[in-house]
């Protein structure tokens, strides 16, 4: 019998396939297309201490094999999440991990402290890497002292599994990974979007209202894979790999590069059933390669 389960710190995932924050709503948006309960976990869209309207439209530009977004953390705040959204999603029989973001360390702490009270929220993912907000966001994720400080502060108020999501917009991602590991992160997810830009030549104008935005989709996969490989060699805590994963082969590559689990983001827009196809494909790969336990694949890159 094939064992697909993996451990991300205290979380036992029934399989390594999760949905990425900001690309899967709260899961309910996908109920018409897949059985969300089959996933290893779902990452909700960002949750902040207060309501945020996000950036102005246009927030999206398609680019070769990918897209830029500048949504800017639009959400109604943690209290709204607890009172209105949580009751609608807590029935899911999978790990629900809330993506936490804010502009201040106090803001991150407030959200984490409140989420700590919710039984069915088994973990949080600190988004210290959002390129789409003016203050905070990516600033926390691009320097070791700041990444360490926010991780340490949230660790003090949150005792379940805390994943820190890293920014690829840095010169040395392994250093940042070490900094958050040292301050008590239980896992890291690698990568958030890459800062990019798109221009409408006819109009001589930027396409996004914010001029720059975050690049995702197959275009970023080689970079994400390289970073997962670098980070997994540098730290001991589990790495969750994401960036451009669109099929089971991509997912296997991330596991081989050192990821314990993977997340699927932009690909959900193209095929809302892709997470399940990836899950079935991983199973098929294991059977074909005589793998009994998917954990055998983690970091099993041969050189």
């Amino acid at each position, binding site marked *: 019998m094939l064992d697909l389960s993996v451990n991300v710190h205290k979380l036992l995932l029934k399989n390594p396939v999760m949905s990425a924050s900001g690309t899967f*709503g709260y899961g309910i948006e996908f109920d018409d297309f897949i059985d969300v309960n089959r996933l290893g976990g779902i990452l909700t869209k960002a949750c902040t201490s207060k309501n945020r309207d996000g950036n*102005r439209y246009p927030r999206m530009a398609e680019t070769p094999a990918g*897209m830029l977004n500048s949504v800017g953390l639009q959400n109604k705040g943690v209290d709204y999440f607890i009172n209105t959204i949580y009751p609608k999603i807590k029935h899911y029989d999978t790990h629900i991990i809330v993506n936490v973001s804010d502009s201040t360390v106090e803001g991150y702490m407030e959200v984490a402290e409140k989420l700590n009270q919710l039984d069915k929220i088994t973990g949080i993912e600190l988004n210290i890497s959002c390129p789409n907000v003016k203050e905070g966001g990516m600033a926390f994720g691009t320097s070791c002292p700041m990444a360490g400080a926010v991780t340490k502060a949230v660790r003090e108020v949150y005792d379940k599994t805390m994943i820190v999501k890293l920014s690829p917009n840095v010169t040395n991602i392994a250093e940042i990974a070490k900094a958050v590991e040292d301050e008590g992160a239980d896992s890291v997810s690698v990568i958030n979007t890459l800062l990019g830009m798109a221009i409408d030549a006819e109009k001589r104008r930027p396409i996004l209202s914010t001029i720059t935005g975050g690049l995702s989709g197959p275009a970023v996969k080689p970079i994400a894979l390289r970073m997962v490989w670098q980070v997994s060699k540098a730290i001991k805590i589990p790495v969750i790999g994401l960036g451009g994963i669109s099929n089971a082969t991509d997912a296997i590559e991330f596991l081989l590069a050192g990821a314990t689990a993977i997340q699927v983001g932009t690909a959900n827009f*193209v095929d809302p059933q892709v997470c399940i196809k990836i899950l079935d494909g991983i199973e098929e790969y294991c059977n074909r390669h005589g793998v009994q336990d998917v954990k055998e694949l983690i970091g099993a890159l041969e050189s």
Partner: protein
Amino acid sequence: MKKFIHDFEVTHNHHITDDYFAIYLKCPVSLPQILPGQFAEVLVSNSTTTYLRRPFSIYDVDYKRNELSLLIKKVGDGTVALSKLKEGDTLNLIYPLGNSFSLPGGKKALLIGGGVGIAPMLLLSKLLHEKGYKPDILVGGRTSNDIVEPEKYKPFGEVFITTDDGSAGEKGMVTQHSLFSGKVKEYSAIYACGPDPMMKAVARVAAEHNIPCEISLENTMACGIGACLCCVVETIDGNKTTCIEGPVFDTRKLKL
């Protein structure tokens, strides 16, 4: 409403002019009910420039033949690729998406379509006709080449035409049509879809005459199913998603 994802079979790709085509698609299962104004997210191919799906209004529905159609204008790689599809090819759709138009308060309504924006007006004129309303359909375009299949609307209401250059119908923009100096007061609702400047002008005229007005927006979308928040429009009640809470909005609610 439940959303579906299916592989449709192309039964006919009708080239109307060099720029416009209508593609007829057969559903592999029984078509669910589709409301006027709803759209589909179409998977173009695995080409790198058309990675995301493309949204198109549902043009017509034939429940007996189990077919729906899309009316498309060629503007870029995705729409050009779709224009090349042949009978027997398959096309993957997520549908039916979005909300719908609300019914008018009185008998008479004005439906306005600019260019390919006319697409959602076919189902709407059909529905209004079926329910005993009296729709007028005003079709606008830059030239006569942009007036696409106006005869389709004739069974359901009276058709009026404007073109910027006067090559068909009255010359000028839709809001300059003589309807707006004459019988406009008879309308209990105005519905419009087309380029932004046109919709703004229509919303303004509707407000001047105090007529409820709904427009269908074509904001760029990444997912079409409410998951990404890329397609939002500012309303007096905050940001709303065009793909779930729209594409149809009451103009009094929009910050135009």
